[in-house]
């Protein structure tokens, strides 16, 4: 009898001071039945990964407005991998140019959502991806 629920860390790295978008996403994901850990502003990649580990999340969502995404995403990923959290699904949102989006998504390590994305779409994406990952890890165990 397993009662697993999707756990998501919504984090805000970098220095910009707005977290309304992040808070909105957090509550939408909650309304889709997920358990959302919200961490507040100004997190370093190491802190984000450490929280992800302590909370054993399935998803790390980064909200970035400062333009530092090309640097931050890989750094968070690296910190996660160092902690053995390579299964974590990374998603991101914010103002990210199309080219950068493609670069980040092509490595297969992040899925990005531009401003104005329907939040329900994000929730659905998470549900599908995490369910896949769970099935894969169950098969391995």
């Amino acid at each position, binding site marked *: 009898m397993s*009662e697993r629920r999707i756990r998501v860390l919504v984090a805000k790295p970098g220095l910009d001071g707005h977290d309304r978008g992040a808070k909105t996403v957090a509550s939408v994901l*909650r309304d*889709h039945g997920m358990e959302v850990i*919200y961490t507040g502003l100004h997190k370093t990649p190491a802190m984000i990964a450490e929280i992800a*580990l302590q909370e054993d999340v399935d998803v790390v969502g980064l909200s970035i407005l400062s333009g530092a995404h090309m640097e931050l995403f890989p750094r968070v990923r690296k910190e996660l991998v160092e902690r053995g959290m390579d299964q974590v699904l990374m998603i991101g949102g914010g103002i990210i140019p199309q080219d950068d989006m493609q670069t980040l998504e092509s490595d297969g390590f992040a899925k990005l959502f531009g401003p104005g994305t329907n939040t329900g779409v994000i929730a659905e994406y998470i549900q599908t991806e995490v369910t896949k990952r769970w099935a894969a890890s169950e098969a391995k*165990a």
Partner: protein
Amino acid sequence: MASSASNSLSTRLLAGERLALSRMISWAENSNSRFPEALEAIWSQVGRATRTGVTGPPGAGKSTLVNELCALIREEERTVGILAVDPSSPLSGGALLGDRIRMEDRTADAGVFIRSMASRGSHGGMARSAVDAMDVMDAFGMHDVLVETVGVGQAEYDVVAAADTVLVVLCPGAGDGVQAMKSGLLELADVIAINKCDLPGADRLTSDMTEAVHLRTAGRDLWAPPVVQCSAGKREGVDDVLAAIKTHREHLKEQLDSHRRRKRIQQVRQVVGERMEEALWEEGDLTEQVEALLRTGTTPYATASNVTQSLLQTARVNQAKGIQA
């Protein structure tokens, strides 16, 4: 196969791997079928940590206080595991877990492990997962385990009541002392912290609570919970709160084992209840029996008596057989 997975996870946990600690807490809260075996493998290491339950009305400053207590405990070179329980949304089943926002300065500290937990559906299930998570942190080697729940209901009370010491946090402005008394929080308390003493009304609340404690405990063989003032947000008086927790622990000293065993009995009782329920209603044919009885026109109470009698009868016969064999 399941067995080797739980073995390796417990081995990794006992070797001090934080990811294993985290994952085993997930097993506990997901009621993963591998958890009981994993717990078995680490059980010899459970029982060394002190356990403090922190509860109180929403917004009283519990997380802030836990964070400051944690800072003080770290100065004593002791490691700390924190479990922060927040309610799940009854509608979606999801949850926003925000306690650790108040504990952010602890994230970089390798001697601290903070885990947020949603209360999820069933009331007994939550208390069980929380106790399991405390056991896992204990086995990992955390010296002190702190668990925070919002003091709003029986399920939340059950969680903190499983700890050695219960700290109830109140603050001025969040209702008066009478409300705290009505809620039953005071009966649970081993230590009462009046937080936000920088705000008006703190002295009044403190004297109300002191009097309430006196009325309840005077002349009786009961622990009188000390009422301690603090302002966690200003890092004032937190040392007094910690001292009061230690005093209570000192007081428990001789009875700590029996105190803990009583709480374990509660845990076992609950698991037995769940197993019985499952066996009787989901795997057994009790539903059909009851339906047949109701068809004959018996009342719900008569039906229940009838069913209970026959179950007990069966149990006695089986027990007698067991003795003979």
